[in-house]
């Protein structure tokens, strides 16, 4: 009897199915959720220690609160700006048909393929005033404020999240609502504002949370941009503070205590803040009722809509695309005579190994979880897991990495750095796979599986032969997303250990030692690798999409 046949038969037994699901849930709770929030437990049990070393030290505390405040205000500002420019762009992507739409679609996703470490460098030299990095021709060099520079950086990599989540919801809102409004005498703008926007709320909230969490959690890009303009030890966000302390020369116990406090504050405030957003945004009653027929009619016709579309495009190119690609201008800078490639190769192979293992684990353990969530939405347990899955997405990755390392090393469970890095990367990429799979499976009518079952297929055979082929591209998309995220992550890696040598960490180290040229080359290599994966992804999805 072949292996698949044997699994098919086993899957027919209810007790085996529950057992398998129990294992998956255990892994999720014990290896992902618990380590992610372990620092909170640590904070309670070691409160006295923290209080003595950190909480009672006003100087350190003011540094911490300042950094956390900067993080939150930045994230809020970035998200609001994204929202304002994201809504018209999502509208263009969903409701309009034009030549070159596919290209635009790819361009919007571009920043997802850019490792943030590379982005930070690119932004730093394009907008900022680098202290000693060589500046390629074409750089603007007009922004001295680190705050505005970081804001510009965060806008770039959060932009696709906003546009994507808005267009996903917009696509689900039947256009006939708007059409109905128009047959009743509403102008295009009135119809969109009074009918579609209120239905849109769910998309706004998801987009808001995704952007906010992503901005809050960013470490590598921020840190590198700050290094470029020589502000890394003067201007802090929450995550860069952790990275900075991790490299400091203070006593290890003291560093641990400080990091624990920063992590706890970041995690708790992030969760509270996001709950508030969810609650408040869900309830705000914007005065959608009022109409100004004449004015809105004027705004719906002629130049106004065209100008709005033009601004969306200009924003995409001037703020998002050109600054991101500016790093390639480094190819115009004369290279130093000698270059040592061995460091980059070592870092690359380590990064690939980590990303590979992480992706594999995500698929094996994440696909069944996504499936369970999607197919048992009426069950309490599935709903709870569904919300728990989001936690690693909300928690800033630096705090996550620190908490996770603390968990594993606290009882001397494991101290192997490679293992810790892998576990940390699994923690923040796992939700990506689960979300993708769950989302895709929810779209698939359960009657496919039901039909297969009544035709004699065992549960696992049904999954193998019917469901998996249908959602294959979503699984792949999740896997590639996880892979590139792992490849580009800085914060979590640094927080686990300052010795783990992934490519982004390698870039940070190069920049700290002033080796800007090699850093730029490494960043470009990382970008190219990510691009290859992203295009592979788009290719498979497009090919699949044609099938049915």
């Amino acid at each position, binding site marked *: 009897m072949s292996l698949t046949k044997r699994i098919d038969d086993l899957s027919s037994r209810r007790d085996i199915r529950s057992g398998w699901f129990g294992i998956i849930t255990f892994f999720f709770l014990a290896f992902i959720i618990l380590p992610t929030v372990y620092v909170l437990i640590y904070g309670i049990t070691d409160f006295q220690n923290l209080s003595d070393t950190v909480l009672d030290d006003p100087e350190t505390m003011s540094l911490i609160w300042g950094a956390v405040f900067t993080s939150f205000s930045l994230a809020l500002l970035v998200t609001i700006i994204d929202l304002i420019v994201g809504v018209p762009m999502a509208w263009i992507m969903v409701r309009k048909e034009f030549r070159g739409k596919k290209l635009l679609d790819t361009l919007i996703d571009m920043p997802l393929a850019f490792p943030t470490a590379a982005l930070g460098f690119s932004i730093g030299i394009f907008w900022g005033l680098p202290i000693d990095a060589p500046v390629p021709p074409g750089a603007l060099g007009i922004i001295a404020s680190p705050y505005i520079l970081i804001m510009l950086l965060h806008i770039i990599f959060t932009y696709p999240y906003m546009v994507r989540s808005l267009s996903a919801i917009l696509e689900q809102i039947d256009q*006939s*609502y708007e059409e109905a409004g*128009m*047959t*009743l*005498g*509403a102008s295009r703008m009135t119809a969109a504002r009074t009918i579609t926007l*209120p239905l849109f709320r769910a998309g706004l909230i998801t987009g808001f949370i995704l952007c906010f969490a992503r901005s809050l959690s960013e470490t590598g890009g921020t840190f590198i941009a700050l290094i470029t303009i020589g502000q890394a030890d003067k201007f802090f966000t929450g995550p860069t503070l952790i990275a900075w302390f991790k490299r400091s020369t203070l006593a290890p116990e003291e560093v641990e205590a400080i990091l624990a406090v920063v992590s706890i504050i970041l995690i708790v405030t992030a969760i509270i803040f996001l709950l508030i957003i969810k609650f408040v945004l869900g309830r705000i009653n914007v005065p959608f009722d009022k109409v100004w027929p*004449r004015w809105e*009619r004027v705004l719906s016709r002629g130049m106004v809509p065209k100008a709005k579309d033009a601004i969306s495009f200009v924003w995409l190119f001037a703020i998002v695309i050109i600054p991101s690609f500016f790093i390639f201008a480094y190819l115009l800078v004369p290279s130093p005579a000698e270059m040592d490639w061995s460091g980059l190769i070592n870092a690359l192979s380590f990064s690939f190994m980590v990303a590979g293992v992480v992706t594999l684990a995500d698929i094996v353990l994440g696909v069944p979880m996504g499936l369970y969530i999607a197919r048992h939405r009426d069950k309490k347990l599935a709903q709870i897991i569904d919300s728990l899955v989001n936690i690693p997405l909300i928690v800033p990755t630096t705090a996550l990495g620190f908490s996770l390392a603390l968990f594993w090393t606290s009882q001397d469970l494991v101290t192997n750095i490679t293992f810790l890095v892998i576990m940390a990367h699994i923690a923040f990429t796992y939700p990506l796979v689960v979300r993708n799979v769950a989302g895709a499976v929810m779209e698939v009518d359960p009657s496919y599986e039901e039909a297969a079952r009544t035709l004699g297929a065992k549960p696992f055979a049904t999954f193998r032969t019917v469901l998996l082929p249908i959602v294959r591209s979503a699984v792949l998309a999740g896997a590639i997303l996880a892979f590139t995220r792992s490849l580009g992550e800085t914060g979590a890696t640094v927080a686990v250990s300052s010795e783990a040598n992934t490519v982004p960490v390698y870039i940070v180290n190069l920049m700290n030692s002033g080796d800007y040229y090699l850093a730029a080359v490494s960043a470009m290599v990382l970008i190219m690798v990510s691009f290859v994966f992203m295009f592979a992804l788009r290719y498979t999805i497009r090919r699949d999409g044609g099938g049915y």
Partner: protein
Amino acid sequence: MPRISLQKVTMRFGDIYAVRDIDLVIKDGEYLTILGPSGCGKTSLIKVISGLWTPSEGRVLIDGEDVTDVPIEDRQVGYVFQNIALFPHMKVAKNVSFGPRMQGKTTEEGKEIADRFLKLVNMLDRLNMFPGELSGGEQQKVAIARAMASGARLLLLDEPLSALDARVRMDLRYEIRRLVKELGITVIHVTHDQDEAMSVSDRIVVMRNGSIVESDSPMRLYRRPNNLFTAYFIGETNLLEGMVSDKDDRNILVKLRDGTDIKVGGNRHFNINDAIVLSVRPEYVYPAKEGLSAKVVQVIYMGSYWRVVTRAKSEDIVEYNIPKHHEPPAIGQELELVFNRKMSMVYRRPKEGISEAVRLE
């Protein structure tokens, strides 16, 4: 009340014609139904009339005024969607007063209008409910009230009943007709359901492959369809292949495949040896002492009559109705059938074959 006229309207998507060269005039206060199978272009046509789409070629006139380029919100047409499309976040009253408010009426005026139209459709007690709390039939009634409350001079119904249960559909179609006739507005109704079209319309336009096949009153289309497709599509009919074997100044004689001769009134424009199709509806087929020999294959109780399905010696399936009080024949029984001479229709046999000529999709 508006008079609508379409002049050479064509809607093209790339190389594909959704509708082609449609000329159609709709009279004041007429209830017109556009009937056809899926993909015949009926929805494209109604979207062009509403202004949701601009035709690739041709003009749309309302009361003699060219509205081809007038945007939809200024056309004053009420549109009722197949998926109902009530705004899910607004209560019933708000939905219905949406149109008036868009025209700059005050909230009070809007409310008054909403009350008036909800009363017309007997939904006044649902005023403060959300669409999700109503049943499908109730939702569609509210949607109709909403469309009319916007002051529409023309009501467009785009398969308004197809999302509902069969039994609800039946009640609602009578109600819709009663309502619009009371208000005297012009209606264009699109459907694929011939029963529905028959019960509501003053006139039916039969469409197929983007063109109009024919248009007439329900009774004329049922009794005297000009076209084989119409005969098959509207109501049920028996189609028998044959050949004109003789003619005199009143009748023609049709020879079926087994050699049986059937006499059919009129149709003197056919010549001897023309290949034809004979169409006769089941209620005009009667058992008799002598006629077309047939064998009973199935007997179905239809409520108000029995339907007997037979296979004739000519290899055609022939069905006929007998009153419910009569004893139906046993399965396998052999009998002879005759056709009502006046109610039999004859068509030239299509080159592509009968099944292709009446293909539904």
